[in-house]
């Protein structure tokens, strides 16, 4: 069965620091990859997604992620974080042709300090 691993459970950064959150998946076939974000008191919302083509995808609020197939990775990056980026971040996948059910990682809690 497929799985998603997020190794950083809690990350604390100062404003303007660069961010990279790790995401690795386990599955031998083709997948579609996502990053979701949950701001305090809000719903889960889509940050960015990768389906095909350019492995570097850009999302909202200056976030980007790079799909590296050989490493089964889809790390999330942002060059300069803001206090408002404090949130929980989830990596997720859908199996291509396997229906639209998301498999999520355990999440990374990011706290950005002023």
């Amino acid at each position: 069965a497929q799985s998603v691993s997020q190794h950083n459970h809690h990350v604390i950064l100062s404003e303007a620091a660069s961010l990279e959150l790790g995401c690795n998946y386990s599955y031998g076939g083709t997948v579609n990859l996502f990053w979701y974000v949950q701001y305090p008191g809000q719903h889960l919302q889509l940050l960015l997604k990768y389906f095909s083509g350019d492995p570097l995808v850009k999302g909202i609020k200056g976030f980007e992620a790079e799909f590296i197939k050989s490493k089964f990775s889809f790390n999330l990056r942002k060059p300069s974080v803001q206090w408002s980026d404090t949130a929980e971040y989830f990596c997720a996948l859908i199996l291509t042709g396997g229906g639209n059910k998301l498999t999520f990682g355990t999440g990374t809690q990011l706290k950005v300090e002023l």
Partner: protein
Amino acid sequence: GAGVSQTPSNKVTEKGKYVELRCDPISGHTALYWYRQSLGQGPEFLIYFQGTGAADDSGLPNDRFFAVRPEGSVSTLKIQRTERGDSAMYLCASSFGLAGYNEQFFGPGTRLTVL
């Protein structure tokens, strides 16, 4: 426009009781999903519907869990003989269609506590 809504926002019940959790999807969305999120974990898939039919219920943990969507819009997740291990946040999402490129929009969730 209105997003996905879920009621109640919180439900406290006693072990052995029956509960119903409701989800109102975004108008026009034909696909509806239920996920369960335990503390410190990511959401886990339970079931999804395309229209009125359950397209995939492989995530339901056992036969105490059941979900319906009789008119292809509102869905109800039903849990019989609740157990303390059922305590979790239950999330509903909807999308325009079932294809993977259709974004799933999540509701605020129902926090279920079984005492």
